[in-house]
C-alpha cells in the first residue's frame, strides 16, 4: 500500500521510535481496523488510530449523535447532532487525513452481518455499550479467527483486554503478529471474553452509562488504552493485554491487571 506523500513529516514524531520506524508505519497504513460502536470509547479509538496512520477503517454503528452524547463523545460537536455517528466520524477522519479509507455501516452488528463485516478486518475494537453486542463480537471473532480489543466502563471504573489474539505456543514468548505473517501450527489463540464471563448477566443487572452516569474523561482513558493495544498489536510490540484483564479506577487512579488461566468458569 502506498504511503501518504507527506508521511515522513506527518509521522516524524513516531517514526523516530525504534518500535515504529518505516516498517511499523507501513504496517499501520496497511492495517484494517473495525470499530464497532462510535460512542464514548469509539471516539478516542478512532481519533488516535487515525492520527497514528492506520490506513483503513470499517465503522459500524446505527446511532445518530444526540445532545446528551456531546459530554463524552468528543469527536462530535453541536452541528453533528442528528447525524449518523459513523458519517460524522468518517468526515472527521477524512479531514485528519484524506488518504485514509473509511467504510461506514449505519446498522448494528448482528448475527446476520457479523461474519461479512469481520472478514474485512485485521482486528476488531469493541466500543459497544451492551452485553449482547460484546458476546456477538466475541463469538464472531472466535469463529473468524480475529483478535479483538475489549473495553468497557462503569461510573469511575473501566476494563480492557485483548481477546483471541494469535500467540506463540507455550515454549515461545508471548508475541502476537498480524495473521498474514504466521502459520497456525506453531501458534495458539489467547483466551477470550467467555473465559472471563461465560454468560451475560441478567437483563438490567448491570447499568450502562445512561443509567449509572459517567464522566467523559473515563471513556477517553479506556478508549485510549484500547487504541494503544491496537497499535501494539499492529506493530508487533510486547506487553499485549492477552490472557489478562486490566481494570482501572479513576477515583484512586489505580490499575490492577488480573491474569486469566484456562481454569475458566465455562460450564
Amino acid at each position, binding site marked *: 500500500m502506498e504511503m501518504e506523500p507527506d508521511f515522513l513529516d506527518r509521522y516524524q514524531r513516531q517514526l523516530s521510535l525504534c518500535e515504529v520506524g518505516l516498517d511499523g508505519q507501513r504496517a499501520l497504513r496497511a492495517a484494517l481496523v473495525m470499530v464497532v460502536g462510535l460512542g464514548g*470509547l469509539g471516539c478516542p479509538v478512532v481519533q488516535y488510530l487515525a492520527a497514528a496512520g492506520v490506513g483503513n477503517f470499517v465503522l459500524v454503528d446505527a446511532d445518530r449523535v444526540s445532545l446528551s452524547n456531546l459530554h463524552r463523545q468528543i469527536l462530535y460537536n453541536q452541528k453533528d447532532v442528528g447525524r449518523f455517528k459513523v458519517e460524522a466520524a468518517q468526515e472527521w477522519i477524512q479531514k485528519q487525513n484524506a488518504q485514509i479509507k473509511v467504510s461506514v455501516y449505519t446498522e448494528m452488528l448482528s448475527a446476520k452481518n457479523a461474519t461479512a463485516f469481520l472478514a474485512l478486518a485485521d482486528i476488531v475494537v469493541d466500543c*459497544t455499550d451492551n452485553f449482547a453486542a460484546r458476546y456477538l463480537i466475541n463469538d464472531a471473532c472466535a469463529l473468524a479467527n480475529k483478535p479483538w480489543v475489549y473495553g468497557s*466502563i*462503569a461510573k469511575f471504573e473501566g*476494563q480492557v483486554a485483548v481477546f483471541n489474539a494469535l500467540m506463540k505456543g507455550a515454549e515461545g514468548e508471548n508475541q502476537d503478529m498480524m495473521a498474514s505473517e504466521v502459520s497456525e501450527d506453531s501458534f495458539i489463540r489467547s483466551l477470550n471474553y467467555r473465559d472471563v464471563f461465560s454468560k*451475560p448477566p441478567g437483563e438490567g443487572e448491570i447499568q450502562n452509562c445512561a443509567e*449509572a452516569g459517567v464522566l467523559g474523561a473515563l471513556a477517553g482513558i479506556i478508549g485510549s488504552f484500547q487504541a494503544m493495544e491496537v497499535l501494539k498489536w499492529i506493530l508487533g510490540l510486547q506487553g499485549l493485554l492477552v490472557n489478562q484483564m486490566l481494570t482501572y479506577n479513576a477515583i484512586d487512579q489505580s490499575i*490492577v491487571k488480573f*491474569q*486469566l488461566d484456562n481454569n475458566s468458569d465455562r460450564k
Partner: protein
Amino acid sequence: MMEVQLISFGALTDITGSGVLGFAIPRPAISVAELMSLLFVRYPALEGKTFRIAVNERFVDEKFTIGLGDNVALMPPFSGG
C-alpha cells in the same frame, strides 16, 4: 482472626463497601465455592449477581483453594461504552 483481604469492583461495592476489607474465614484454607457461600450469608444481595472471583490477581474457578491473607477480588462485567 483468620481472614482474607476482600475487594469488590464496580457496583458490587454498593453491597460490600469499597476498599479492602478483612473477611473472616473458618479455616486457613477454603475452596472458592465455600467462600462464595460465606459471602452470600454475609452479603445476601450478592447472590444471583454476575461476577468472577480472582485470588491474588488471578481469576480462579470454584475448586481453587484460598489461603490466609490472600487478596480476593469480586469482579463483575462492565457494560458501558
